[in-house]
């Protein structure tokens, strides 16, 4: 029974609108696409990506498994082991003038943007030469000269900030994009919603990159949201959502490239969901007893670094000897960085007072 009015919507569409599939999904790039990608990217950038993945792994291993246990790190440690492909595959595509807003599992983003292991380690050790001069710890660091915006603890606070950065680019008609990173848990925050919505309404040049590592501390993703994929939320914002295998650096690269192209073309933001797994506890103190051994083992087999090495060997981009040499180089680099950081002094206590407000000599 309906009141008659021809040009009206059909009323009360029941049941829900859930059947339609609105997100693009791609398990992982197939073999053909893989080769095509390898050729289009070129050997040098491909090797550089491997280097950054290995450097990140080594740096974080050193922080979490050595320095933290030796009591040399001040405060907590969060690492992105098993997730390196995400920040490497995406951040590699940024140009110098682009901006990144990393989150707490995106060490590679800092490195690729030019922040260096010695100063990063000094940061973790609360030293004067850390990026925040001892004022803040671990990955709470940034460098505006390198166009890296510092993360704050409040998850998803960086989402509207990234939109604001994109807004500035749009207003000034600059050909620049922002990459903004966050976890699955962060998507439950109101700031995430407000930020994405605003970016989409304004068609801002932002690529939102979610590392869906299936846990937020001890909370599994099913207790975080009642949808299967974070990307399922994109249509609500009139935004393109895409799902990629976050342990496949080439897949991440490929999807990010498309998202950046869209952003540069003025087509607005993209929500890129990278499926992955957190291969550690939430932080160094957490043994993740709530995750079963089998799940860890299953994901260990999907390790993004060994997987990528296999691809590069197979495609003859690099030899095993070169990989071994790269590993030695990375270790040495981190050894030196640790020495340097340890020799950096603690800040002068009085330095605490400076810089709350603008100071003339800055």
């Amino acid at each position, binding site marked *: 029974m309906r*009141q*008659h009015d021809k040009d009206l919507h059909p009323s009360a569409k029941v049941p829900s609108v859930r059947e339609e599939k609105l997100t693009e999904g791609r398990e992982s790039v197939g073999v053909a696409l893989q080769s095509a990608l390898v050729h289009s990217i070129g050997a040098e950038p491909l090797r550089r990506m491997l280097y950054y993945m290995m450097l990140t792994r080594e740096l974080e291993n050193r922080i979490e498994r050595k320095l933290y246990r030796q009591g040399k790190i001040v405060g907590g440690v969060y690492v992105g082991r098993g997730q390196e492909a995400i920040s490497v595959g995406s951040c590699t595509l940024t140009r110098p003038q682009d901006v990144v807003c990393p989150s707490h599992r995106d060490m590679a983003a800092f490195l690729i943007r030019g922040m260096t292991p010695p100063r990063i380690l000094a940061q973790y050790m609360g030293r004067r030469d850390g990026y925040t001069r001892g004022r803040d710890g671990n990955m709470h660091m940034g460098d505006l000269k390198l166009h890296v915006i510092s993360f704050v603890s409040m998850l998803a606070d960086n989402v509207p900030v990234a939109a604001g950065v994109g807004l500035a680019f749009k207003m000034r008609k600059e050909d620049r994009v922002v990459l903004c990173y966050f976890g699955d848990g962060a998507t439950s925050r109101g700031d995430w919603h407000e930020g994405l919505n605003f970016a989409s309404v304004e068609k801002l040049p932002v690529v939102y990159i979610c590392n869906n590592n299936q846990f937020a501390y001890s909370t599994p993703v099913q207790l975080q*949201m009642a949808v299967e994929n974070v990307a399922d939320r994109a249509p609500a914002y009139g935004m393109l959502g895409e799902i990629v295998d976050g342990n496949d650096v080439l897949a991440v690269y490929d999807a990010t490239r498309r998202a950046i192209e869209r952003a540069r073309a003025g087509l607005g933001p993209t929500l890129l969901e990278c499926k992955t797994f957190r291969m550690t506890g939430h932080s160094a103190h957490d043994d993740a007893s709530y995750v079963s051994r089998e799940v860890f083992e299953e994901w260990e087999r999907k390790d993004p670094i060994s997987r990528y090495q296999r691809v590069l060997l197979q495609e003859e981009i690099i030899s095993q000897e070169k990989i071994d040499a790269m590993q030695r180089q990375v270790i040495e680099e981190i050894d030196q960085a640790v020495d340097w950081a340890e020799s950096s002094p603690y800040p002068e206590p009085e330095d605490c007072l400076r810089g709350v407000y603008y100071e003339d000599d800055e």
Partner: protein
Amino acid sequence: MPTKTQLHELYYWMQLTRILEEKLVALYRTGKVVGGVYTGRGQEAIAIGTAYALEKDDLLAPMIRNLGSLLVRGFCPEDALAQYLARATSPTRGRDCNLHMGDLGKGVIAPISMLGALIPVMAGAALAVKIQKKRSVALTYIGDGGTSTTDFHEGLNFAAVRKVPLVLVIENNGWAYSTPVARQTANPEFVIRAQAYGVAGFQVDGNDVLAVYEAACKAMDHARQGNGPVLIEAKTMRMRGHAEHDDAWYVPRDEIEHWKTRDPVDRFERYLRETGSMSEEERNTILRRINGEVDRAAELAEQGPLPSGEDAAGGVYHETT
């Protein structure tokens, strides 16, 4: 399908809302109202169609355009009038304004101004219902503008994850103050948001009280049976300014003219007439009754005293009496 009595009741509530709001506007123009007047003109079908679908122990939290919901749930015209006139006799004794009133005995939770804030609160009320193993549902509303807030997202997501019996109605009236929907969202089909949260979503013609009622009944059934929240998008149009001070010069004239032809009260009246559900006689009786009620309520409200200054103090914390 509602019975004839129910159809008459629906008509009564629709007209009561409309006539009471017209009275409020008249009082506003003579300077008697303290503060602004926000009406739901053109949106009456949504408030009434949804609130009318509630059962006795259900919960309601209205927004500013939902005077009709409050009336259906047992607030009387004098309550609303006394609130707008800031009288000591109003439900909040002059402490808060307009429709910011509630009564837990009636299952009505008072709104606050902050758009969206009611959604987590009603999700929590629905959570309590679930914990207490009751069969009530919680109903609340949000405007198209309010969907952009933190609390819309956090509240609906929380409700979805916990599968609580919440029915959230998005009243898409095209405007949030002077901001058109196109500047509020890049996807104006708000019903799609249901999919973003993993909840059921219905879209309904918000100017068709029977369609709204039917959708609300289905939504409430769905929620009551433990299937989690439901999002209803009701498409409508705000037929006046944001509030009475605002002449809505920014709204294109033809948009208003177009929607005038869909006026929910007129349409329902036409429907009742054409289906022979209400005679001219019956209609006149209902209208006479409403006019009498509203006039009497206005008189009483105006006779009510203003609170005395000292009444500002006290009642901030629990007081043992």
